[in-house]
């Protein structure tokens, strides 16, 4: 028993325990839902993976990126090219390669981004989001141009089917296979991000965010810290893009417009800047809100067009409401409320709190709201 407590007190141990629990929850949830929910969960997972990367970049290092949709496109196109090849690469290998390629692109963009601040950085990454789809059009022969690359999810490997049957006594459908793949990717990415955020690297990122001069005085190389944050964030976006390619089954420029980049930023803001749980909550909201609203509109007697127009409206209202009423995002606000309940005497200072970067905790400082 004491050993268990010891494990809980070490960061890695705690993260691994949470991960194991998360894997269990994923299996239980995916098994208990129908195929359509599994598809929606996959969508939530790829938004969550990319938003997780963005929340680390923005929340921990203070860099704003409006170009993460473009980085997802890099991951998605790499996957589409690899998976359509014959013989087909095993999907995990394709996912890893896509992540690696996106990280490499992240190095280049990160190096440029490290020299820019605030609105200039936002502008540069915005340009990336606008320009990258053009690359797919220019190299239309390989990248499919406007039509995009179609992708067929390869047959589920036999051992996976057998293993799934062994555990659940159901045959594994293709959509559930992709859902598992997506969520296991998400769990791994979040584990790595949470560990990194709690490590020396993460402390450097936060030091650079909070005060550049102080960080430099402490011997931190500003450029290196910024580039490394960008690369890690790009890798997560690449993994998200790779999962997206599998889920959507088509990789085309129209799927990676500026809207996608803004959607990711929205997920991060809605959930709470710097918090992985917040990113996941934001992704969930963005995935499920539109269909719930449209259904509600239809059952309230609106015609199809009116019901379809209702979703963007409610989406906008929710966004404004969150920014006005809960500027730390949903998870950030809940967390602050919880702290106040437990410890009414002490004013919380999340920057120095011990569990600030564990999954489920807010990393954003109260000062960080202004960034």
């Amino acid at each position, binding site marked *: 028993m004491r050993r268990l407590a010891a494990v809980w007190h070490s960061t890695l141990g705690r993260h691994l325990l949470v991960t194991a629990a998360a894997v269990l929850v994923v299996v239980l949830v995916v098994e208990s839902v129908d195929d*359509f929910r599994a598809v929606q969960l996959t969508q939530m997972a790829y938004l969550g993976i990319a938003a997780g990367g963005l929340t680390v970049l923005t929340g921990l290092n203070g860099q704003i990126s409006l170009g993460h949709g473009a980085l997802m496109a890099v991951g998605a196109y790499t996957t589409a090219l690899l998976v359509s090849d014959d013989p087909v690469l095993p999907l995990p290998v394709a996912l890893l390669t896509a992540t690696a390629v996106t990280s490499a692109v992240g190095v280049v963009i990160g190096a440029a981004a490290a020299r820019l601040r605030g609105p200039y950085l936002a502008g540069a990454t915005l340009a990336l989001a606008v320009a990258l789809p053009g690359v797919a059009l220019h190299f239309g022969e390989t990248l499919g*141009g406007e039509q995009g690359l179609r992708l067929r999810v390869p047959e589920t490997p036999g051992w996976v089917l057998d293993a799934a049957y062994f555990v659940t006594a159901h045959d594994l459908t293709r959509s559930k296979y992709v859902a598992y793949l997506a969520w296991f990717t998400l769990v791994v990415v979040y584990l790595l991000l949470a560990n990194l955020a709690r490590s020396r690297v993460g402390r450097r990122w936060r030091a650079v965010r909070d005060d550049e001069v102080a960080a430099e005085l402490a011997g931190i190389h500003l450029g290196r810290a910024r580039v490394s944050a960008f690369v890690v964030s790009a890798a997560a976006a690449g993994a998200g893009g790779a999962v997206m390619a599998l889920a959507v089954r088509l990789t085309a420029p129209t799927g990676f417009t500026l809207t996608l980049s803004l959607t990711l930023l929205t997920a991060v803001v809605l959930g709470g800047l710097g918090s992985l749980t917040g990113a996941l909550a934001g992704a969930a909201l963005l995935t499920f809100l539109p269909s719930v609203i449209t259904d509600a509109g239809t059952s309230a007697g609106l015609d199809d*067009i009116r019901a379809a127009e209702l979703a963007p409206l409610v989406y906008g209202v929710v966004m404004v409401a969150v920014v006005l009423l809960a500027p730390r995002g949903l998870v950030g606000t809940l967390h602050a409320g919880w702290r106040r309940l437990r410890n009414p005497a002490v004013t919380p200072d999340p920057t120095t709190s011990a569990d600030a970067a564990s999954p489920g905790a807010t990393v954003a400082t109260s000062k960080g709201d202004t960034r």
Partner: protein
Amino acid sequence: MNTRTRKLAVLTSVLALTALAGACGAGGKDDDDKGGGGGATEVGVTDAAVTIGGTFPLTGVAAPGYSEIPTGAQAYFDYVNANGGVHGRSIEFLVKDDGYDPTKTSSLTDELVLKDKVFATLGSLGTPTHNAVVDSLNDQEVPDLFVSSGALAWGDDPGAHPWTFGWQPDYEIEGKIIGQWVSENMPDAKVGLFLQDDDFGEDAEKGVREYIDAQVVEAQRYTSGNTDVGPQIAALQASGADLVLSFTTPSYTALGQLVSLKLGFKPQWYVSNVGSDPTLVGGLLERFSEGAVPGTASSLNGVMTTRYIPGVDQPDNPWVQLWQKVWDESGQDGELTNYRIYGMSFAYTFVQALEAAGEDLTRDGLVEAIEDDGGDFAGPQLAPYRYSSDSHLGISGMQVVELQDGVGQPVTDVLTTDIGDSEIATDDSGQADDAPPESGLPE
């Protein structure tokens, strides 16, 4: 929490997990047969109703015009349901808004198939959008009927996509028909091509070049979404083209006309059927020019196009009279438009297919019925369908017309052909003289 409760909690959770792992184990896989049930119940079909659905752009840039298509189809299904349905079943038509974004099309089609459990998809709109879902629909063996797009991919290879059917004439035969007309009637014209940079433009160019490859002096392409077509029109002007064949969607027809007006470029225009609705293009012209160009249907005067179903410019046509009646009875807002007629027309074909498939409705049966009987389906189309087990392409021909005050004046007879090197012939099936049955329901 004191130590004892904590111990207890840990113990309970460990026990719970063990129990869970034990409970969910199936041990191993038996080679049990998957009894199909012999078609007793088909997905989306009950004795009282058949549920179908489609994806359309109801919001966003592609919405003008196109968002009216499902309202037309809905109006006709309301009419059919009010008259007893098909084999006693009413038709429930679910419409999803994909905003012309393939990512959304993919998730919404999943929603239709997996959640709403539709029997088939009907009329789903767009080339890039439908590209995202055609494989998965075929993998899941869901009939994918009458895609609202003329790309060849919806029917030229039934082996690859046995569940997918096109409906409107494909862009290649449209290119062939106008190509031959130009080679016979304007052999000296210098031809410029203004093309959308996807299957639409590509298929059409293939057809055109079969007849007038030597006459084409310039081919310019635009990407849907980029609204600056100045460079393309300027290049066409510089090439000295005096006839421009424009395979464009309505917005780009309007943009092309507007830029030509600015540059003083006045060739003879031919605009593809999908981009030549005079009322819509006129309205777009007025909007894009901020009122400088009046938004009347006459703004496309002298422009040539094609048609394959009667439209609102022929109010005396018995089909149009039927559509007017159906539209008025449905009580939806707005006027009868060509887009609504388009929706009603494919809805009519779907009702025919349901009737042909018989009382025991199955997905297999429906596809078989269209392959076997689709070539003889009556209806508003000017030329017969090409449906067979070798081709899932739709209407086989069209008529070249010239627009005057929004009305199409026939330039040729109805011409039919097929993809590849098959000949173009004047249609002798008499399909264009077909009139609707008294009841307005297919017989």
